[in-house]
């Protein structure tokens, strides 16, 4: 195996131009796919955080005794899909409303009595993202004898979840298509490398070299080139990320624009994927070439 590694490094040095072309091709492919993945990952994060904000407000019937509140809370908590149920008294609700209305809050002074009902603000578990499930849960809560009405933005949630699923599906599909495109671009570049060395391969065959003897250094070369292309691609993306996070983010001072980079594990997985792209490209090209 050491012999094959030596031969692979020797071949990379000898065919430095074509090796550089392969590395640049893999680097560009990794850069494009990683940028896309990073975009989808960050957007996914934002959408998830919005999703976490989905709440059901359950309004209580008037004249519910305070002693029953713990019991009602336990009943709501016992339902599948409920992460948290917080009691909002009508005084607290009025306070929040005043804060929201700001200058117009003086309009509320006209009320002799607080017209707002007591309520429970119910947060859902993360897995509970299906609009049908949310609707079912709302029906169950509404069926409790102490609950007067339930509100959860039925139409908005339905649309949001559909949009979120479509976005995620598009992300998977585009990443898959870009991955395949990268494999075929790399396969064609490696085919050029193999074609430029066809005489060498032919001579090797004539002196009794087995297919394995011929192929192994090509595979090692492709995996090394894949790793190098992946590392350079990620480094370029990281540099762009640092630039954006220090310049653009600060100048906008916009909380929403906080972008996160890949974790170490994910970075490792991307480098492994770029090595796989190199290997696959080599496999496709060599299979066709050695058949001829």
């Amino acid at each position, binding site marked *: 195996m050491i*012999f094959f590694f030596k031969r692979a490094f020797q071949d990379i040095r*000898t*065919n430095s131009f074509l090796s550089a072309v392969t590395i640049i091709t893999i680097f560009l492919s990794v850069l494009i796919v990683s940028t896309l993945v990073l975009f989808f990952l960050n957007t996914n994060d934002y959408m998830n955080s919005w999703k976490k904000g989905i709440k059901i407000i359950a309004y209580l019937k008037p004249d519910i005794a305070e002693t029953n509140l713990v019991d009602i809370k336990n009943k709501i908590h016992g339902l599948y899909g409920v992460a948290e149920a917080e009691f909002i008294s009508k005084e607290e609700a009025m306070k929040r409303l005043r804060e929201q209305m700001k200058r117009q809050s003086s309009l509320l002074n006209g009320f002799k009595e607080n017209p707002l009902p007591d309520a429970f603000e119910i947060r859902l578990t993360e897995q509970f993202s299906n609009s049908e499930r949310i609707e079912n849960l709302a029906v169950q809560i509404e069926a409790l004898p102490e609950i007067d009405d339930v509100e959860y933005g039925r139409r908005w949630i339905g649309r949001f979840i559909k949009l979120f699923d479509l976005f995620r599906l598009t992300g998977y599909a585009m990443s898959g298509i870009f991955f395949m495109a990268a494999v075929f671009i790399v396969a064609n570049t490696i085919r050029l490398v193999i074609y430029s060395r066809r*005489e*060498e391969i*032919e*001579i*090797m*065959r*004539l*002196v*009794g*070299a*087995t*297919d394995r*003897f011929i192929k192994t250094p090509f595979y090692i070369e492709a995996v090394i080139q894949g790793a190098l292309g992946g590392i350079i691609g990620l480094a370029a993306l990281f540099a762009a990320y640092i630039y954006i996070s220090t310049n653009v983010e600060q100048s906008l001072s916009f909380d929403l624009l906080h972008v996160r980079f890949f974790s170490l594990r994910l970075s490792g997985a991307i480098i492994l994927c770029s090595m796989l792209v190199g290997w696959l490209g080599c496999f496709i090209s060599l299979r066709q070439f050695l058949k001829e």
Partner: protein
Amino acid sequence: MIEKNEKSTIIRMFHVHKNYGSKKALSNINLDVSKNEFLFITGPSGAGKSTLLKLLYLGEPVSEGQILIDGMNLSRISRKRISFLRRKLGIIFQDYKLITTKTVFDNVALVLEAMGKKRQFVQKKVNSVLRMVGMEKRFNAMPQSLSGGEQQRIAVARAVIGMPKIILADEPTGSLDPESAGAVFDLLKEFHARGATLLVATHDQELIRKTGCRVIYLKDGCQVSK
């Protein structure tokens, strides 16, 4: 007697035909070559000399007939076994076929490396063969920096380093000056003296006359005389 004869035969060709489309390159070739024989294949250009050698190292498949080399039937040989057949053969080409991106040493070492020999053995053996062909001082040179005669010596070194039973030489002196041609031919004779069977395709009648070995004459793909 027949059994003894069969045992000493290393190459057998039975009614071998080779066609390229509708063009007949070789027709009904029957040939027995004994172990350690020195055989010339001659004839005018386009007679089928190179094609005949190609069939022996499976550079081309036969269209009809059968070839046996050292007990291996080439029509039944699997794709994987072709490399093992070629290790029994040492092939010398008129255009040398050296890898231009590798040094003299690496070109010669390639055969042993393909056989999976250990590095120390390869180093020792390559040095000894390069010494034999008088190229030990040029071990680090690239093929392009060598003369035609020197390149052919390297090709001979590569052909013999695996100690093949059979050496196939296709116009080994065709592109060389008389002095270099003589040196290369002397090398071939030396390996023949060491026990190898030699098949040399050439149209150099002077060379054939000097050695006095058996000659196969081809004309338009047909065997004219033995």
